[in-house]
């Protein structure tokens, strides 16, 4: 349990210094912001004494005096082009948390598809937004979600109306440019019954800066909806990233998450998937690829609150240098959620003696007719795979390079956006190869899903 203090925690106090209720508010939203502000003031910064933060010491974050980002940076398209997924026909770009219309593309979307800054959408789609915004990502006990919600203004709103199939991805690009700035990226995506959507969230930086992104995303999938969600965290090496993603799934909804953590000195993702109806199908793929002194923490929750849910989770960590990866995979099967079929795998590869991983499955099963499994491996490359490659003539070093690459590529290759797959494969290559050995195969021959 977190301690509630009477005076605000000095760090939170600093982050809230000069707080003004964001403009452009409607009354119900102002009310939610006020509740969040109250919680932000009441909650304290978690420490390793909190069970949820046992392995992740965020004190380095509290030593940097972050201030609210000011919306002055105006990068031009040429600087941003490399982050743009050409497959996406709709894109919203936020620079230091502020919507940048000149770097966005929202025109020509078909009827029933809305990709818009949240503030603008409040005028046109309040009835759709009101039941969901700040209703899924709880801020009662999460100080960072509370902070984000108190500051809620420049978010992204994605809405795919009932039975609409939006075949091309929607890209949300969150760019950071300012030193010691704190930003609060926010997204609400509503994919209604029978609709289909691919959502890309990409957190990146222009230049090496120390900054703090406190991100919250809420995704709502209606009955039979299909959502593919790609989340790429490639923040600057000195940055801090704390993200919450809450997903609510109605009956027969499909949700596939592809979450990749590459950047940031310290990053944390809470991915909470709530099964609100029967028969959902979930895939959760995760990859943390870190080195140096990076820390990447993923806490996932698959909450089978209804029967007949199926979930396949694969979380991989490739850890080099003196980096530290954390994975806590919680699966809850609530009473009565019979015929749940949930399987979790945590696979970890350590590339150096000082690399470190903490992995913890957490299964809480309160129904008797279910199939739940988990498995974790931490270690070196698979000896049988290595022998197989060597038996085909590959030298030991090349075989190791190939397998290390493949370990990460398995997650990357399943991302349903080819341009991102290509970019990320290159990153995996650059971070996994022993430099003295040449790449054993030609790029562009990777597996395509």
């Amino acid at each position: 349990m977190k301690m509630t203090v009477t005076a605000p925690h000095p760090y939170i106090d600093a982050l809230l210094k000069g707080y003004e209720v964001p403009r452009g508010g409607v009354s119900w939203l102002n009310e939610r912001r006020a509740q969040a502000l109250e919680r932000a003031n009441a909650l304290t910064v978690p420490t390793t004494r909190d069970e949820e933060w046992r392995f992740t010491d965020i004190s380095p974050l509290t030593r940097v005096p972050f201030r609210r980002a000011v919306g002055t940076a105006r990068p031009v398209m040429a600087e941003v082009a490399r982050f743009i997924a050409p497959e996406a026909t709709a894109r919203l770009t936020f620079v230091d948390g502020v919507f940048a219309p000149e770097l966005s593309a929202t025109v020509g979307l078909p009827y029933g598809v809305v990709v818009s800054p949240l503030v603008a959408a409040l005028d046109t789609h309040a009835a759709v937004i009101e039941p969901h915004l700040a209703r899924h990502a709880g801020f009662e006990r999460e100080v960072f979600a509370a902070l984000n919600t108190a500051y809620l203004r420049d978010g992204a709103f994605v809405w795919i109306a009932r039975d609409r199939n939006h075949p091309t991805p929607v890209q949300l690009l969150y760019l950071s440019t300012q030193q010691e700035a704190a930003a609060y990226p926010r997204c609400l995506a509503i994919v209604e019954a029978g609709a289909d959507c691919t959502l890309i969230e990409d957190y990146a930086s222009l230049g090496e800066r120390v900054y703090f992104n406190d991100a919250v995303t809420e995704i709502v999938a209606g009955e039979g909806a299909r959502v593919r969600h790609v989340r790429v965290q490639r923040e600057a090496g000195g940055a801090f990233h704390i993200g919450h993603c809450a997903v609510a799934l109605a009956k027969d909804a499909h949700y596939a998450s592809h979450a990749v953590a590459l950047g940031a000195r310290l990053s944390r993702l809470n991915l909470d998937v709530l099964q609100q109806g029967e028969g959902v199908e979930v895939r959760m793929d995760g990859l943390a690829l870190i080195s140096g002194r990076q820390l990447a923490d993923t806490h996932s929750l698959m909450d089978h609150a209804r029967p007949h849910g199926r979930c396949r989770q694969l979380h991989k960590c490739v850890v080099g240098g003196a980096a530290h990866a954390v994975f806590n995979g919680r699966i809850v099967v609530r009473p009565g959620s019979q015929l749940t079929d949930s399987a979790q795998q945590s696979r970890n590869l350590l590339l150096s003696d000082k690399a470190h991983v903490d992995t913890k499955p957490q299964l809480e099963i309160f129904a008797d007719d279910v199939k739940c499994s988990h498995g974790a491996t931490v270690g070196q490359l698979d000896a049988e795979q290595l022998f197989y490659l060597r038996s085909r003539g590959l030298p030991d070093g090349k075989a190791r390079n190939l397998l290390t690459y493949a370990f990460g590529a398995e997650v990357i290759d399943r991302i349903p956006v080819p341009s991102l797959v290509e970019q990320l494969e290159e990153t995996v290559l650059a971070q996994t190869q022993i430099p003295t050995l040449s790449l054993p195969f030609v790029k562009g021959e990777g597996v395509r899903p």
Partner: protein
Amino acid sequence: MIRAGAKVLLEVKGLRAKVAGVEILKGIDLTVRAGEVHAVMGPNGSGKSTFAKALAGHPAYEVSGGTAAYDGGDLFALAPEQRARAGLFLGFQYPVEIPGVSNSAFLRLAYNTMQAVRGGDELDPLEFDDYLREKMKLLAIDASFLDRAVNDGFSGGEKKRNEILQMALLEPRLAILDETDSGLDIDALRVVANGVNRLVKPDNAVVLVTHYQRMLNYIVPDYVHVMDGGCIVKTGGKALAEELEARGYDWVKAAA
């Protein structure tokens, strides 16, 4: 085909090998000449697969005695990749799945590695694709094979075909096929056996490791060896395999 005076490819003498400290092979002698097909048979646990893996250099199989001369040199002095480059091929009983590496990239990598050894041209992805598709026809392999990860999600039969496809690309001088017939239905068995038959030439040799006689209906061996308790206890011609099929292994054990 047995030919007097054919070159000796492999000469194993008194081979002993351990797995996890337990001795499995207890003195094996075997001579394979160019052009020959040998079948190594025997009941489960007789040491057949251990023999195959020890020859290929699997690190978990420790050679504790005996010698193996391959092409006149010391086989056990070579690392697994050096054995492969010297023309030794192991067809795996359980081909390993490698998610994240495409089958086409893997096959090209293996092929080009051997081309470098043979002094032939290495092929780029496009050239290789043409070459590969020709070989795939021989084995009735579907093109979708190439876009998938190495053996990942392949059926048992697909995995075995993929092994023989590799054999066709690498053109080994000595192929050791470990239980290549297991898990194959009769049609797949015929396809795989045809593939192997096309690859047998006067200057190379094949050692088939198998539990059952049925593959030998399609690939006719020159010699049949029966293993039991880590030794070869009986050697004969093709008729021996038929006798084993009819009578089982017990009578050989009793006679030994």
